[in-house]
């Protein structure tokens, strides 16, 4: 798990915008990974199995507290955590994470798997939908994300 803790970092960053809730989600995923470990048969790579538990937990983890939403509009979004960026890529990544907050839970999962480099087929297996459906949904989601990014970039 230690080796793949980047998955926890990325999933929680995509699904939750504030650090406190992010920590909560990370801990919840860890608990669910421990609980589910007996189910891991070693048929797939550990990272593939971990993707599934992490994404399934993040998608179904609704908090009762309405004051903290998993989605927020970029109109009210706070400034990214780092004000100075070492590189243009880092700035873009901050912008990307900010824009992702406006996607729904399934769209976030699609983008996560895309960024991790999973094929349409493997993403379909993870989500339980067809490869063709992944292709269409992913293209639409990428288009939506690009529009959000443009809008945020334009406003800042």
């Amino acid at each position, binding site marked *: *798990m*230690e080796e793949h*803790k*980047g998955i*926890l*970092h*990325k999933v929680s960053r995509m699904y939750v915008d504030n*650090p406190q809730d*992010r*920590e*909560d989600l*990370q*801990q*919840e995923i*860890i*608990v*669910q990974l*421990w*609980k*589910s470990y007996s*189910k891991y048969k070693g048929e797939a790579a550990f990272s593939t*199995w971990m993707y*599934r*538990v992490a*994404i*399934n*937990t993040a*998608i*179904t*983890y*609704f908090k*009762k507290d309405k004051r903290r939403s998993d989605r927020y509009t970029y109109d009210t979004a706070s400034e990214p955590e780092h004000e100075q960026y070492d*590189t243009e*890529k*880092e700035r*873009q*990544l901050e*912008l*990307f994470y900010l824009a992702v907050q406006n996607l*729904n*839970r*399934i769209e976030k*999962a699609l983008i996560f798997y895309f*960024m991790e*480099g999973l094929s349409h087929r493997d993403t379909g*297996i*993870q*989500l*339980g*939908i*067809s490869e*063709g*459906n992944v292709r*269409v*949904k992913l293209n*639409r989601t*990428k288009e939506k*994300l*690009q529009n959000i*990014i443009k809008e945020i970039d334009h406003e800042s």
Partner: protein
Amino acid sequence: MNLDELKSAWHADPIQGVHIPTHIKHLRQAQHPLDKLKRNMKNEGYMQITAVIFMAIAPQLFSVHPSTYTLYYTSYTMVLIISIYYLNTFRRFYQRVSHYTTDTKENLNEIYYEFKLNIERYHSFGFLLIPFVLVWTIIYSYSRMLEQGEDLSTIPDSAKQSLLITLLIASSLVTIGIIAWTRYFYSPYTKQIKLVLDELKKEEL
């Protein structure tokens, strides 16, 4: 922004603030709604066992007239059988391993239908208790009347009607209360899950 080109930054993003406990005892209690539902059900199961034991000796504790014992224990036996059935169902649900290792659609389906099923279980079990509560109310009232040298034949018809109306209103309120309780505590979550599930099922081809 070119997302394909961003992948290198995505993979190189430094991991901040991820603390993995080294021992299982350092893990916190699961906060997932499904885990919370299971914990609630476990606690309610213990309360139910206590209530069933208490109900077995209630006639003696509340000085119910011995002539009503047959009626009381007949209805109690029915409640006991139903309780055993429900407790066993709850136990099986609680023990059923519900992990998050299946694909996302199956996982959402499972959580959604488990919640719906358990909401219905709450409803039906609550509704089944109403007749027993009515029997108890009548037996208890009748025993108090006997103590005062009265019986059902001495009550005026108007009082009987008032009693019946009161019982009907009370039963309706209990029914509404049970439904409102599940709606408040569980329905918001099932609605959220259903929205995500519908989004995933939506065919875009």
